[in-house]
């Protein structure tokens, strides 16, 4: 067994320090060691997208990285989207448009959309559809998710 390494990360603005074997997946480190249970694990081979997080501002699959690789990084997970006890406009839009059912893929969806609307605040519906295609949802049929993304974009444009 390889020795544990120190892992220092900032998650949702909070500094964390932990120790992990090199093989420990970042998704497991977030959940098991930091007890940030919002990030969900759905396939552990990078396809379902439920574990998507922002890693230094970029969306990545946390099941395809080792925790030791994250040292020094700034991470944002679903727990970090709402601020001051208030839903983010994306979360509001998801609620208003029924863009989630079981809610298991939702953390990955929200992080994906959060990044997408930052890069593309005025998307077409087709772009929104493509953006969420990296996260599998088995419940919704995606239609209401795409509707929510478009509505969120509008909310955010108005607020900006």
């Amino acid at each position, binding site marked *: 067994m390889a020795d544990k390494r120190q892992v220092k990360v900032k998650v949702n603005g909070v500094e964390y320090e932990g120790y992990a074997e090199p093989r420990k997946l970042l998704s497991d480190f977030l959940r098991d060691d930091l007890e940030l249970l919002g990030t*969900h694990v759905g396939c552990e081979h990078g*396809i379902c997208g439920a574990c998507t997080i922002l890693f230094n501002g970029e969306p990545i699959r946390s099941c395809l990285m080792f925790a030791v690789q994250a040292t020094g990084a700034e991470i944002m997970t679903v727990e970090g989207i709402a601020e001051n006890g208030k839903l983010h406009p994306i979360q509001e839009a998801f609620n208003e448009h029924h863009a989630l059912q079981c809610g298991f893929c939702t953390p990955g969806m929200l992080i994906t959309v959060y990044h997408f609307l930052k890069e593309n605040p005025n998307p077409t519906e087709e772009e929104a559809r493509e953006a969420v295609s990296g996260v599998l949802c088995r419940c919704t049929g995606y239609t209401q998710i795409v509707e929510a993304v478009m509505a969120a974009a509008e909310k955010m444009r108005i607020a900006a």
Partner: protein
Amino acid sequence: MSGEKKKWVGSSYKRKEDMRLLTGRGTFMDDILLPNMKHAAILRSPYAHAKILDVDISEALKAPGVIGVVTGEDVKKASKPYPCGVTIPTKYYTCAVDKVRFVGEPVAVVVADNRYLAEDALDLIEVDYDPLEAVVDIEKAIEPDAPVLHENIGSNIYNHRFFKYGTDWDTLCQEADEVVKWKFNFPKYAGSPIETYGVIASYSSFENSYVVYNNYQGPFVNHALTAMALGIPENKMRWIIPTDIGGGFGTKTGIYPYCALMSIVAKKTGVTVKWIEDRREHLLASATCTDRVTYIEAAVRKDGKILGLKDKAMDTTGGYIRPPEPGCAYRSTGNHTGAYDIRNLDREVYIVATNKGLTAPLRGYGCQELYFSTERITDMAAAKLGIDPAEIRFKNFVQPEQMPYTTATGGYYDVGNYPAAFQKCLDIVEYDKMREYQKKARAEGRLVGIGLASVVDPSVTNIAYVAIGKTIEERKNERDKSGSGEAAIVKVDPLGGITVICSTNPQGQGHETVISQIIADEFGVHPDEVVVDSVLDSSDRLYSITTGSFSSRFASSGTTAIVRASRQCIEKAKKIAAHLMKIKVEDVVMEEGKFFAKDKPEKAIKLRHIAGAAHWNQYDLPEGIDAGLFGTSLWTMPTSRPPDGKDRVNSSNTYGFVAEAIVVEVDQETGEITFLKWASVHDAGTILNPQIVRGQVLGSIVQAIGGSMYEEQAYDEHGQCLTASFADYLCPTAMEMPKVDVDHFESPSVLTALGSKGAGEGSSMSVPPAIGNAIADALAPLGVVVDELPLSPSKIWHMIDEAKAKTN
């Protein structure tokens, strides 16, 4: 009651569940952390069929962090085979005992300090297998020289039954102008929820009792059967289902064997054991629908009237048969003739053993397999007779004036207007215009097709259907089975707050929201004031064997139980109000959450004062009234009767209707399919929450697109699974989901409190045949017959290629 205009029910009230789910605060199985919890990993068979000669766990036991190892021998000692509704002696243990019968079957379980270490130790278990020839093809499995999976059965037939309803088939054929026949293959696919199975089990030797957290979706008959398998009283095995389940779709009815297995593991190792199924395990060995071969014949008159059907359906439940199978073949008994007035049916059913993964109900349970054959043969009959596929459906629909209608097989359709609902679908898709468009497209050499399907969507299964797996004679010696009970507790706390405890065990269907809407209407409060607890704990919740979320039972029986419990509670409140106001109960009126004498509305008392009296001053209650304020219901639908002496059974309780119209274009060079237009019209009775219902319909459509075009648990001839990762088991992404116009035609059920029927499974049943019909229609000019799914571009290209080769 039904159809009445409500304040909250019928509105798209925003989901209450979302607040926690959007902020990463849900409680799913893997979020449950218990003290001293250890972690299990399962060693699984690499062979489809092999004898187990030896399992050597000595090295694994020495591995770092390992607490214990459990093998099939341990499981055999600690449990009995699961009971199942067939007459052959099945031997389904939760872990392979002497033989493995499918790739992925559990062979041993390691418990270690964490999952990484547990998986390391799996690598150290040495299993000596003697590989045997495997059989994966349904029809080959019942040939006399096929390798036999279960020596104690002697063949690969788990179940074989004949049924005859109405006129004898040969006589019918003489009356018919045409008899159209074909063979169809329906694939094996799954719900594949993004959250996999999960179990945490612990055992106390002092009480000889188990606590098992798991994300089971029901039916709770399997709680009883698991207790039987473990040989313990049912009340010594407490199951706790967390608030949030990450999707079910029927797949999670298949967890219960792992509840037994992990109970055995917890007992043997003496620790609390957590097992979270990984995706590979899920794709290999959770549960799929049955794949089915159907030989079907339709006897039709020249005018399009279908006189009768004859079918032989052969399902496989894989390496074992386990409950609720053989339901795959019998769940649809009452609605076998679908939306059509067909009085004559000749049925043969086989359920067959093959070296493939096991099965469970999948959204639509048994109906997509059925309707793929019946709706395809309907189109083929229309083509043969030169009738439009829409016309043949109109010709055969059960008419609204025939309602309530009892089918030849015993189904009781209470309401519906199939021709009108179907017409609505045709109007939305602009059917005539699309036919014109198709004509033009064909003239340009394009392959455009229009596919229709019109099906009856059964919900709230009556457990009685399981009994049909046995003959009338065999059933005579057994207790009758019937029921569809669903439970609810509505309680008002000392400060007047309303809490509802539901037993419907939701997996994303929004029950907390809809229940709050119903309570808001019943009690005259705001939905936000209502708290709904959806944890299902077998030790303190009201439930029965039929409890859970399956067969779309919430909208019908779940809501009725909520309404009944509410009204019971309100009746009690009225009695207390009468006592407090010193008037007769009959004179108490409740409106907007206030109770008053009918002639003195100005002197109203609020619910919270009545609750206050019931809780804070228990001495001063009317004679014979218990303290507190609550109502309970475990309501079963009165139409849930046992099968009759002629194998007729009302296998479900409410029957909705779905019309699907899909326009596709096939790229004849690549075999790729594009959806040009799609209308989906549903009669789900009263719509409780339009936004939620729309989500349910769109969700069932995307899964059905998956099963029709992308998803399959596929095997090679040796029984090796070809689709054990999400790179090969292809769930549709947002890019594969077309625009679909969803609409409704409401005929409220007269059997349920709010008039609602199921809505979440209809398109699961109607989309596979509609896609099949659309592609068949597109390829018709080439003489291609579509008789299997899923239709990948490669498959379609070969169909086109072969047809072209024939004509050249």
